[in-house]
């Protein structure tokens, strides 16, 4: 509330300034301030927005006659770059590829899911509809490659996002495209000639340690016992460090992330704009 107060006061002061001094003087300062804005909202701000969305969903679900518990968003316990190659030997010795970590995280049943399952079928249908809307109509996103994704523009999730972001179709379409970039980036890194060129050295290092794999992906395609997983991932990590494969995938991941952000600049800017405008609403909840 205090933050909104300060912002509000700032805006009013700026407006006053426009009235007194005139637009030509004030405007350049205003644009400069806008240009200095970071291209993304901060992690904290995203959390504020997600929490606000959860509060709105809770109110909406309760209005529909159900319970809804606000829970923190599920976070994958395995760092994203480890899906290319694990390059932290200590982590690998303890967690392998992270299979057990993921299983444990998945096993913690969301209290909302537990509540949902406790209901009789007709009530389950009513609750799922309350959250996700009826038919998947109203929101459409077309992803690069032509994939069409649809969702209902009704239901508590959509209503919460509409209340926060205003323009729900734009919010949905931009969010889906941006979420999809991660998978796209993954494919770009693996297809990069520098990655391909670095594989033989890694593979040779692995062979010296008793493993025959042409790539870290190939090493992951077997279902392993935990003991084998830890040993194998430990070797993978040590080879990723000694051959530089780990550093390379991190570099490529960062660079393709930047490239994709550049390519989708206007979409990202639109989304950031919606997020910024939603922040005061989120803080007022």
């Amino acid at each position, binding site marked *: 509330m205090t933050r909104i107060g300060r912002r509000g006061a700032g805006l009013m002061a700026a407006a006053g300034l426009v009235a007194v001094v005139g637009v030509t003087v004030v405007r350049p300062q205003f644009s400069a301030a806008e240009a200095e804005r970071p291209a993304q909202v901060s992690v904290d701000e995203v959390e504020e927005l997600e929490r606000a969305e959860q509060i709105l969903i809770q109110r909406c679900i309760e209005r529909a006659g159900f319970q809804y518990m606000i829970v923190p*968003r*599920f*976070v*994958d316990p395995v760092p994203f770059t480890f*899906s290319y190659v694990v390059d932290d030997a200590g982590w690998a010795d303890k967690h392998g590829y992270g299979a057990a970590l993921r299983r444990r*995280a*998945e096993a913690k049943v*969301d209290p*909302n*899911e537990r509540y*949902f399952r406790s209901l009789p*079928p007709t009530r*389950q*249908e009513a*609750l*799922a*509809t309350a*959250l*996700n*809307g*009826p*038919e*998947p*109509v*109203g929101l*459409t996103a*077309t992803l690069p*490659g*032509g*994939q*069409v*994704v*649809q*969702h*209902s523009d009704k*239901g508590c*999730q959509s209503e919460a996002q509409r209340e926060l972001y205003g323009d729900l179709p734009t919010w949905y379409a931009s969010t889906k495209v941006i*979420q999809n970039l991660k*998978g*796209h980036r*993954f*494919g770009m890194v*693996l297809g990069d000639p520098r990655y391909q060129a670095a594989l033989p050295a890694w593979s040779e290092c692995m062979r010296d340690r008793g493993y025959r794999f042409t*790539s870290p*992906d*190939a090493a*992951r*395609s077997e279902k392993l016992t935990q003991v084998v997983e830890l040993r194998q991932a430990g070797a993978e990590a040590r080879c990723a460090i000694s051959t530089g494969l780990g550093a390379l995938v991190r570099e490529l991941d960062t660079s393709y992330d930047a490239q994709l952000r550049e390519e989708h600049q206007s979409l990202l800017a639109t989304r950031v704009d919606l997020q910024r405008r939603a922040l005061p609403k989120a803080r007022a909840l």
Partner: protein
Amino acid sequence: MRFMKKAVAAGAILVAAMGGAVVSPTSASAAVTAPPPDGHLYAWLDINAGEYYHCRWVGNDDNWTNCTDWDGVARNMHDRASSVQNRGYTKEVNLYNDAGQRGAWRCLSRGEFWPDLRNVRFNRGSSETGYNYPMENRISSHLWVSSC
């Protein structure tokens, strides 16, 4: 059975629309009707949930060869699905190229409908069977997960 007529009507509209040159995503989405979320994953033999033949699941299934539809009729959806929808509550779902939650996969978010799997490719599990292939007629198993 209750959404059969709707689905057929939707198909008819789509066919009518396809008489023209291009079906825009908007007109396609307007034509699709389906039952409300009920906690299930749904998969249809046809694109746009266009025919009745489908399967639905509450839990995980490591082989889509034996599955059942809304009426409890036994079906086979192994390597046959052309559209899918996540009608679960809070969960998302990984769709796999192979039985036993093996092979390449892709994650379907909650509340989401993919009306045409010809344009969707498996995007995870790069050294696995099916990676980067269109998902139509390839999905063989699935696993509910907390987040895509």
